[in-house]
């Protein structure tokens, strides 16, 4: 259906090719996942396939048409760019109508297919709503619907799962799977490795090169028999993650609930290998239980594992202060906007040295809770303290104990790394010698010193993220707030990021994360699931997983648990609503 032959694409002023000698054949009637971190070349691949870019070398054919010679294949092509291509000031219906007319679909037929798609995507009730006022998930569905008006043979979808909560994401998958069953060839790009397992084929890209092309299970199988879960004492899991990673035979380690997930090099398992490889885990090896490999294990392995030099961090001893001190306390927090209650009596306590996660679908009230704790918004009711300071009474003072890293890394692209640090240090009240010492330490610790005089806008994504972290923790805050810190970041950079966070936590900082990215949730000690402004569950990731365990689902993932709990909560509120409705009816009705 789509054929790439030795395709290379290079952009001006880039130090490496965006795509390098890529050859693949993508089949009809299947979902092909284009998998890779940001900057791997996913978007370039899709744009080339859509004929929006011209390859420097090689040949691309779509439905047997050479994309460089004729564009007739576009009449059968649905393309959804990352920004949806929706007009935010047009309604759902107007957007659909526009694309129907642009595609030259006759009026009556267009209307019929709009109605069909509105029903199909469940957007029917929102047809008069402006596209800009839809949630992330609904926007994706509308984007998908707009591209499907022509009954395509090929669908190219650029990161449809990003910025969408798990529930909506499942619905999107359902839509796409139905299309596939009708014989449509689908290309779905994603930075989320867990989405790979749902695809029929995967094209794994890394730095412009093809790492793997084929069924995902085949790729995952490469790490089979090499992946283990290790029982470790809970207090030491952060330290052990680092220590294990430094062993030469270990490819990857990552915390999974109360256990450590470890991937070993193939040599480590073969008897008769050189001694330095065999001493992988001398005493601990018999505590290791083999487990089923995941796509991510194979991915990290394919990239050569987490580089050891990135792990060799300064090992500072944890401060001897009381570990049970509650640094962040939220009690009955309520935030109302007019008649709408965004946050409804949310309470939790976070102790020193704890990573706490706020999970929830878009619009559940995570960000509002977050903003109240950062002192950026005042609660309508309830109270919150940060490091013992009441946010109601001394918001400005409390803010000095808080570091904030926004999802989009709010850095000044035109300023250098050092200037960014100077500016933000000043904002947080650091001056003179204290500021320059703090900056020097930060540059050393985060290994940014060689890049100190480079404009922040020119940094690769992983370094940008490092700088954003540096900015957030420059003034040594007691609490660090992270807003989806590693969404879309290369898995190696993500490992590195969390290793640094682990260190901060060991030093006694509190880290609070909001995310709907399950991978990030896994790093938390405790999670609070928020839905419609209320906390519906609060526990450790393991306990949350176990709570929905059943014979049908012996090994639930965090996402399964998340979705099950949301569904349960929504059913409950609907039942409540039904009860109150019937109650009202009874009261108002004639008495017998």
């Amino acid at each position, binding site marked *: 259906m789509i054929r790439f032959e030795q395709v290379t694409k290079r952009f001006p002023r880039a130090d490496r090719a965006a795509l390098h000698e890529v050859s693949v054949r993508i089949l009809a009637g299947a979902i092909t996942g284009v998998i890779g971190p940001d900057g791997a070349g996913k978007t370039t691949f899709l744009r080339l396939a859509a004929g929006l870019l011209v390859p420097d070398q090689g040949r691309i054919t779509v439905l047997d048409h050479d994309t460089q010679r004729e564009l007739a294949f576009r009449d059968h092509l649905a393309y959804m760019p990352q*920004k949806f291509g929706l007009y935010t000031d047009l309604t759902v219906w107007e957007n659909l109508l526009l694309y129907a007319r*642009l595609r030259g679909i006759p009026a009556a037929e267009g209307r019929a297919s709009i109605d069909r798609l509105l029903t199909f995507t469940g957007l029917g009730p929102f047809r008069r709503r402006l596209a800009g006022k839809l949630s992330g998930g609904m926007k994706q569905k509308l984007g998908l619907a707009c591209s499907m008006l022509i009954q395509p043979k090929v669908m190219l979808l650029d990161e449809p799962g990003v910025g969408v909560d798990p529930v909506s994401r499942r619905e999107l998958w359902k839509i796409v799977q139905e299309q596939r069953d009708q014989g449509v060839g689908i290309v779905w790009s994603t930075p989320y490795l867990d989405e790979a397992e749902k695809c029929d084929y995967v094209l794994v890209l890394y730095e412009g090169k093809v790492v793997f092309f084929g069924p995902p299970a085949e790729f995952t199988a490469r790490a089979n028999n090499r992946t283990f879960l290790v029982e470790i004492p809970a207090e030491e899991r952060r330290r052990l993650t680092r220590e294990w990673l430094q062993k030469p035979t270990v490819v990857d380690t990552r915390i999974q609930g109360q256990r450590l997930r470890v991937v070993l090099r193939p040599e480590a398992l073969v008897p008769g290998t050189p001694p330095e490889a065999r001493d992988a885990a001398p005493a601990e090896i018999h505590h290791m239980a083999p487990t089923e490999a995941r796509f991510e294990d194979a991915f990290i392995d394919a990239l050569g594992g987490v580089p050891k030099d990135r792990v060799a961090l300064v090992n500072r001893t944890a401060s001897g202060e009381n570990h049970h001190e509650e640094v962040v306390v939220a009690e009955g927090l309520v935030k109302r906007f007019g008649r709408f209650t965004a946050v409804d009596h949310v309470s939790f306590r976070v102790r020193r040295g704890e990573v706490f996660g706020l999970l929830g679908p878009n619009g559940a009230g995570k960000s509002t809770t977050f903003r109240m704790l950062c002192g950026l918004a005042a609660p309508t009711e309830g109270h919150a303290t940060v490091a013992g300071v009441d946010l109601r009474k001394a918001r400005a003072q409390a803010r000095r104990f808080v570091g904030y890293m926004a999802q989009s890394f709010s850095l000044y692209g035109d300023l250098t790394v050092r200037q960014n640090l100077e500016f933000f240090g000043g904002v947080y009240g650091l001056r003179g010698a204290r500021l320059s010492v703090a900056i020097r330490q930060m540059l050393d610790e985060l290994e940014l010193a060689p890049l100190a005089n480079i404009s922040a806008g020119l940094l690769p994504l992983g370094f940008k993220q490092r700088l954003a972290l540096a900015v957030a923790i420059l003034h040594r805050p007691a609490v660090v707030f992270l807003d989806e810190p590693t969404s879309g970041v290369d898995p190696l950079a993500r490992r590195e990021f969390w290793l640094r966070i682990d260190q901060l936590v060991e030093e006694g900082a509190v880290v609070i994360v909001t995310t709907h990215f399950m991978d990030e949730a896994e790093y938390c000690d405790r999670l609070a699931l928020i839905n419609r402004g209320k906390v519906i569950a609060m526990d450790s990731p393991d306990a949350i997983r176990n709570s929905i365990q059943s014979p049908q689902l012996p090994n639930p993932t965090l996402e399964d648990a998340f979705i099950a709990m949301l569904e349960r909560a929504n059913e409950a509120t609907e039942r409540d609503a039904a009860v109150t409705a019937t109650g009202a009816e009874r009261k108002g009705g004639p008495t017998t």
Partner: protein
Amino acid sequence: MSSQAVSAPKSSRSRHIRLRCVLALAQKEGYQILRDPSSLVIAFVLPLVLLFLFGLGISLDPTSIPLGLVVETRSAVTDRLATSFRGSSYFELWEADDRAELEPLFISGRLKAVVILSQDYPRQRTMGSATVQVLVNGSEANTAELIVNYVENLLQKQMWYDAEARGQPVAASPILVEPRVWYNPNVDSRAAILPGSIAVIMTLIGTILTALVVAREWERGTMEALLASSISRAEFLLGKFLPYFGLGLSAMMLVAIVTVTLFGVPFRGSWLVLTGVSAVFLVVALGLGLFISTATANQFVATQVALIVGYLPSFILSGLVFEINSMPLSIRILTHLLPPRYFVSACRTSFLAGNVWEVILYDTSLLALFAVVLWILTIRKTRLTLE
């Protein structure tokens, strides 16, 4: 690849213009105009604000110039003279009988000029010729010259009338020039400025209106989706152009009507002709905006460029404020490359002179030439890939 496919390369691109596509895009643009009030503000509020600024703020006529008058010895002659000064709307008169009284005011700049009728003046007048001292602040050269001319004129007239009243022959000035100004008999600079300023305003509005629209598509990522839907350049640009053409033409008519009704500027030409010329000019201005938008693909840069390209040259070099004939040759040649120049001329002619076909046809045909060139450039600049 089959030979049939080769014979029809890029088939979906070279297709003739599909009216449905253009209308769909134009309708979409129309919805956006209605929902995002900024275009409506640019089209209707901004031109009126500018028109009022031009109409009320910029005036090349002197009024209420503070002028001192020192009469050292009063007589019937000096009284008559003082009365004519008082009656002039050009001056705000400060009177004194001692020059020392007004001197500090003149030095501090409060008074622009002082006219001194010396002790001897009434006597000199009876003798025939008289000397009058006029102190003028030369740091404002234009005003100074104007004052001197005016005072001279006034004194001469006075003398002439006096002599005539006494039945004496006028010795000093045998000829008195009685000027007659055509087209703008009151030499009201507002009547001269406003029709021209309409042209400048429309250049600005037209350019800004469309400067945003292509850049917006690129910035919001909708361009990518449009490109993938096999739309042609002409369809895209026409869909962008038509709604703003309607908007621009209504803005033009609004401004013209306000100029005539509120500011009392005469309109001697034909509305139909003015509409026609405006339509041609809007093709140029909107085309310029589209070109800027296409070339920059960034809304912020596009507005900056539109302001600089659309406003400054048209204000300074179109002949609206500064007379083109008094510019140096190189600049004069440059003005021929600025479309607003021709529209200023066409507007002025329509308002003040009427349908002078020679002027209007010349201006319109040059504007049409600009339109063709600009649109060719814009079409060539419009990309159909993301390269």
